[in-house]
């Protein structure tokens, strides 16, 4: 049996899946004061009467780290930067204490000026005096050569609680993002570690023989142990849980739009030939651009609980949520009240809902019923308008080869997959405005938890070989090894996949058989004075993110029995 749990800002969903069927699902309110209790209470509910030995997998998607950031309950950070020449590093000093160190590495990973030990020692003394125990060490071009970051770490006194080195986070180039990612990683480490410890206690008490996994923003999972060093990857996993859930419920091989319509927001994602799109540079977390690899997801402030207002004679929906619907005792009218008024949803006190809509409608010269229709149409129109803007941006993303310019692959969605509780009720309006079939799979309301349950471990690696210098570097592993001058793209690919396999076996032993794929590969001849002096080879490999589709017929039967 697989258990998946997705903790959102308002609700926490859990599902129990066995034999390709959702056996049980439940939704509980999230208690922002006690996340751990929210998790254990929800797990207890979904597992009631189930014998511990039957559970084979527990995947969690949580907001503990997000919440720690939002409420300012993160650890103070000491930031050691090695920016070298370039943009002014003053803009990046996001730590409580920041040190700009001497030393530099160039784009090919060659040290171009040395570290100064005394500077590092002085920083060390100041950090210890200030009682700062969480550090981030980030150098420009460290993924090309991690030796300076490692040397800085080695020069510090022992006893710091948590240190993030930039090269460990990602092989992608982007110094400012690396700085912010490293700081966030260290800042939430303590929160995450406390949460992970509590989960471990919970599972150990039940004598579950497996390691729980945590969801990441890329639609994959990581074992609880492995995520302790990379908590930043777990920060925004909610949207990817939903996307993976949509894929499990409605697998497709076409270009498609995924809408996750929730209480406060509608999250928009895209599939190209059935495969989710990624954020090209990494996601924004807590207002900072990061290197965290993530499925593309745009959050629009429009949902079932969005606050309705009349402003300058026009209806305005959201972007804020004031509380639940009027029908449920909330403070303001919402689209949910519109659905209740129209009779599409039987929930709470219908009289309260239509009263609120009548009041609002009188200011617009509409009856409650007319207004209810107008609300849903306006909501659908706003979603479609945003989808079109996003598609235009995606379809004009730059490409760097003649081949890609000429191919000009464009994303042209042929269908919409809508999930989230209000999705089935909004489908007619969406279908009308999109002019595309809108598929609302059964169990759309708990797609996020299903996605969590069915996601599989993922990880990625970057291999850079410079045969002129005779090195290959794998920054995520902190690895630098010699290569012979005849080292080729073929051999680089082979080595990258081999290292990825080993990394996966270490991070998620149960998933060792997963399918690996090459995401990017390039090989450039390096020339000096009209002679080829070597090859500059770049290979990026990853574990292919995937979900096992549910058995659709059974899911249908279950849905009818439960909803």
């Amino acid at each position, binding site marked *: 049996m697989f258990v998946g749990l997705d903790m959102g800002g308002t609700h926490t969903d859990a599902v129990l899946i066995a034999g390709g069927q959702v056996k049980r699902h439940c939704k509980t309110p999230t208690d922002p004061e006690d996340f751990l209790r929210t998790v254990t209470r929800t797990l207890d509910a979904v597992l009631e009467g189930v014998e511990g030995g039957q559970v084979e997998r527990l995947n969690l998607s949580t907001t503990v780290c997000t919440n720690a950031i939002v409420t300012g309950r993160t650890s103070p950070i000491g930031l050691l930067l090695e920016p070298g020449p370039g943009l002014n590093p003053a803009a990046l000093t996001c730590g409580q204490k920041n040190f700009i160190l001497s030393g530099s590495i160039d*784009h*090919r990973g060659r040290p171009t000026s040395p570290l100064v030990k005394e500077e590092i020692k002085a920083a060390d003394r100041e950090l210890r005096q200030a009682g700062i125990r969480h550090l981030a060490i980030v150098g420009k071009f460290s993924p090309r050569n991690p030796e300076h970051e490692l040397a800085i770490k080695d020069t510090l006194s022992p006893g710091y609680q948590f240190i993030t080195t930039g090269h460990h986070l990602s092989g992608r180039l982007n110094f*400012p993002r690396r700085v912010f990612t490293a700081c966030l990683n260290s800042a939430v480490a303590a929160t995450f570690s406390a949460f992970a410890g509590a989960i471990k206690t919970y599972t150990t008490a039940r004598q579950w023989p497996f390691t729980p996994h945590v969801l990441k923003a890329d639609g994959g999972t990581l074992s609880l142990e492995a995520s302790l060093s990379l908590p930043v990857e777990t920060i925004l996993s909610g949207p990817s849980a939903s996307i993976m859930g949509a894929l499990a419920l409605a697998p497709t091989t076409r270009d498609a739009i995924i809408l996750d319509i929730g209480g406060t927001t509608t999250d928009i994602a895209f599939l190209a030939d059935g495969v989710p799109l990624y954020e090209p*540079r990494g996601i924004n977390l807590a207002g900072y*651009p990061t290197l965290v690899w993530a499925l593309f997801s745009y959050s629009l402030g429009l949902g079932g609980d969005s606050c309705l207002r009349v402003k300058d004679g026009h209806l305005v929906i959201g972007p804020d949520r004031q509380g639940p619907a009027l029908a449920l005792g909330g403070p303001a009218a919402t689209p949910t009240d519109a659905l209740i008024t129209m009779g599409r949803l039987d929930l709470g006190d219908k009289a309260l809902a239509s009263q609120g809509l009548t009041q609002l409608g009188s200011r617009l010269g509409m009856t409650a019923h007319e207004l209810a229709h107008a609300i849903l149409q306006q909501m659908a129109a706003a979603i479609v308008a945003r989808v079109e803007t996003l598609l235009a941006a995606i379809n*004009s993303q*730059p490409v*760097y080869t003649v081949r890609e*310019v000429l191919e000009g692959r464009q994303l042209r969605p042929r269908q919409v997959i809508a999930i989230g509780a209000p999705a089935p009720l909004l489908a007619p309006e969406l279908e009308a405005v999109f002019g595309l079939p809108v598929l609302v799979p059964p169990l759309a309301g708990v797609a996020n938890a299903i996605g969590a349950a069915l996601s599989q471990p993922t990880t990625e690696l970057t291999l850079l070989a410079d045969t002129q210098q005779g090195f290959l570097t794998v920054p995520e592993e902190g690895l630098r090894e010699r290569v012979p001058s005849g080292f080729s793209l073929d051999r680089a690919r082979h080595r990258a996949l081999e290292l990825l396999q080993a990394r996966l076996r270490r991070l998620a032993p149960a998933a060792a058989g997963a399918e690996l794929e090459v995401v990017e590969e390039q090989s450039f001849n390096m020339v000096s004075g009209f002679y080829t002096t070597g090859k500059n080879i770049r290979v990026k490999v990853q574990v292919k993110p995937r979900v096992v589709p549910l058995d659709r017929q059974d899911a249908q039967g279950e849905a009818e029995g439960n909803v």
Partner: protein
Amino acid sequence: MYKAACRLGLVFFPAFDWAIDPTHPEREERLLYTQDQVLEEGILDIEGIREYRARRAAVQDVERVHICVPEVGARVTESHLIAAGGAIVAAEAVLKGEVDKAFAIVRPPGHHAMRIVHGARGFCNINMEAIMLEYIRRHYGPKRIAIVDTDCHHGDGSQDIYWHDKDSLYISLHQDGRTLYPGTGFLNEFGGPNAFGYNLNLPLPPETGEEGFLSALEHFILPVLADFKPDLVINSAGQDNHYTDPITNMRFSAQGYARLNDRLQPDIAVLEGGYSIEGALPYVNVGIILALAGVDYSGIREPDYSPEKVAQSQRVSDYIARLCDETYQAWEQRDTLRAEYIRGKKEISRRRRIYYDTEGLMETQEETTLICDHCGGLSWIDSRTDRGQHILAILIPRDACPRCQEEGHALFERSRTTDYPDGIYLQERVEDTLLKK
């Protein structure tokens, strides 16, 4: 986080799958380290900097500028069309008001490509800036445009294309043609009879340093631009004046290129040459981007930079000061000089030999231009190559007066293909067509 004071559009097209040949300076690797530097500095995350996707220019966009023999398809590759299209995308972003400035980091370059194209010259087949500018004029109306060419080589192609065009002021700073390809670019190349003085060359001596380039900018280029009052300033941003460039002898730096662009404030910059792909391009390109976007560039420098590497001798300083004075005086007297030049003439002819270094082909041109006070004047070029090709090119300028236009058509009618076995071309810029018989 960083914020641009000036909205900047970037078109980056490194053509990672195209080379002239595997070890040629114009090869796949050329912009690899520039891309690394741009990515690592997080340039694309700077608020106000927006990256655009390059597109392919149309054959008609090329024919507006060039007469390719026998036709466009025979003289260009897809990569040339995309580089030209990339420059057009950059310019359009500015003209549509989406950004304040734009920089097209595209390859291959184009400033050695002339009006007639029999092959490749100095790594160039078609002229990216000219194709871009004529596209702008066609779609966004007439413009006074100044091209400031800061490539180390004289942009003889751009000079040729705008030779008869008073609305396109071409200014080139370059290493003296007596010491470097293509061997042209002197003060006496002052423009055609109807645009005399609108082609300004400043041949700088070898070993010119940071100070020399910046003083040429202050004491020559900026004053000329203040007189000319262009609607648009274009920088042909070649980067081979860098002290590490393997094929030139100058002593300019990334910091210098950034300062130059900061002072010049071009509306659009287009990459030209520059073959120190590791030691210069990554830093120069980042410097130019920051200067155009109005972001602090004071920290940009090459890892091996030292003031001695960019210093120049007193002799060089004195020479440049004299050169600037002399050239500026000529510019101020351009109307008087023109009157002397055309006195009593109805038409003016010139005969030139043009070498295509890639093919090893020699072209001989005989060009005649009608003297005209109302337009750039009708020109026709009798062009032969040492491979036996022989064509006639008739060029009716964009601003042609009725007489020059009519005479151009009449000449096309009357010329016989028996005299020009490889074709008679009529580039009709008023009607925006290219005819061939």
